[in-house]
């Protein structure tokens, strides 16, 4: 399409103004996302040894990472943890949101707020509080079991730590997810329910056939956040490690392993490779997931 000089000047001006507005973000993006990733990638191509010094060995760190039982074990844990945690979390937050959407008493408003509140508590603090509650010496669990003469299970030891951590993470995040679903439910046009009722639908059918399909986008958004969050699991295991009696090891999750590799063993090149590998694994997992569930009008399109 031929354009007049005036139109071209207007286009140029629009491009310039547009870039001016996104310039600060572009700078932050380049300096704090692209640069660290590239630098980590660059660092990960070298190996450092006491005898050999720093040597350029492009694949060594990655071969080491993907054959390192510590890294693979951590990845297996976070993947397994996501597979159990995310469905449980989604079902709980969806169920609560549906109930709170249908009930509009003063108590429901209060409950909504209380269920949401753990989100405002820093993960470190939440983990420490749960550490107290789980503690066999001064936790309520020990006393409860003590009443009937039993020894309470320690929820952070090797055989219970999966459930113990799942409880903490669900407590922390289910309320936030519930609020997102709730907000989406509140956005649905109520005349739809009226029409369904006239057609003879009961409350359960309205919830499952009308409300659920209309909040799919909210559910997808939550799923993606939960997936990204769980795969990079760090704060809770790092805080609870010292009191877990060995239930949480230094290589419990990939992020924890990268942290100890860098700061306890000063292997920065290998830690760079671990971080980069973790970033790529998460990115690819989430991308595949979004690609499989994509539809018009949602996040990726």
């Amino acid at each position: 399409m031929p354009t007049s000089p005036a139109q071209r000047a207007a286009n140029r001006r629009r491009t310039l103004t547009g870039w001016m507005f996104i310039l600060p973000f572009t700078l932050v993006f380049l300096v704090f996302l692209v640069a660290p990733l590239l630098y980590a990638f660059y660092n990960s191509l070298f190996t450092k040894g006491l005898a050999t010094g720093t040597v350029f060995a492009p694949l060594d760190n990655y071969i080491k990472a993907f054959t390192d039982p510590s890294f693979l074990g951590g990845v297996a844990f976070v993947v397994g943890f996501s597979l159990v945690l995310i469905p449980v979390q989604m079902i709980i937050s969806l169920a609560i949101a549906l109930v709170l959407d249908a009930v509009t008493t003063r108590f429901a408003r209060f409950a909504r707020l209380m269920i949401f509140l753990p989100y405002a508590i820093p993960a470190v603090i939440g983990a420490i509080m749960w550490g107290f509650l789980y503690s066999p010496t001064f936790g309520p669990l020990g006393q409860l079991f003590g009443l009937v003469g039993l020894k309470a299970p320690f929820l952070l030891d090797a055989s219970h730590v999966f459930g113990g951590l799942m409880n903490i993470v669900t407590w922390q995040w289910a309320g936030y997810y519930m609020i997102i679903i709730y907000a989406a439910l509140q956005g649905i046009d109520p005349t739809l329910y009226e029409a369904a009722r006239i057609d003879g639908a009961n409350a359960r059918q309205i919830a499952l056939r009308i409300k659920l399909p209309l909040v799919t986008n909210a559910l997808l958004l939550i799923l993606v956040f939960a997936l990204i969050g769980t795969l990079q699991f760090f704060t809770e295991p790092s805080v609870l490690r010292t009191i877990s009696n060995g239930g949480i090891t230094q290589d419990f999750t990939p992020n924890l392993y990268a942290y100890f590799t860098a700061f306890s063993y000063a292997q920065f090149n290998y830690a760079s490779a671990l971080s980069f590998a973790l970033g790529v694994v998460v990115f690819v997992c989430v991308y595949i997931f979004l690609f499989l569930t994509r539809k018009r009008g949602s996040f990726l399109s």
Partner: protein
Amino acid sequence: MWFDKNVGYLANLQDLFTYDGSIYLHWIGNSALYAVAGGVGSTIVSILAGYGFAKFAFRGRNLMFSLLLGAVMVPLTALVIPTFILASDAGLTNTIWAVILPSLLNPFGVYLMRVYIGDAVPDELLDAARVDGAGELRTFLQVALPLMRPAIVTVLLLSMVATWNNYFLPLVMLSDKTLYPVTVGIGVWQGLASGNNGGGHSLWSLIVMGSLISVVPLVIAFLTLQRYWRGGLSIGSLK
């Protein structure tokens, strides 16, 4: 029972505020500084970028927006160690900037602002302002900005919470304990206390008290700003 030990709350509180040269108050102050600076900074960046993406069909926009969506999917903690290595080579570690500057990166905030502005700020209104002779900056500040308020409050609150709650980044970046935010400070106390089980007893009461107090500011912020964030949280999911 575990909760009815005879606890002298006031004595504990005083202990908390004076222990180790009032270090706890330093930590709360640092957390507030990081949360406000990081939160306000990243919100401004998000507003500008969201407006740019939503309202200007400029060359390169689609490419930049795809990069932005890609950035949402990069796990931010995977960036912590690389950012530390970079900052350490630049001599920035162990300063407040090492915590504040990386907090400015908030791709999801940009995404939320872009979606909201696309819906809530009509092109016709902006064109009318331009026809009336307002420059781009004035159109943005006086016409568009007031319409974005719910999204701004939501993004601000979410990014302040994220910075206040952040643990991994400051843990890695800071070694001077007077620069710690409260999350790292209490985490360090907890590590010390569980390291020597018997001798650490007085530290446990500080940890409990310190944890409770550190939760108060955010709880108050959420309760008082309810009206704004409840609507704002649906922005990303309604479309």
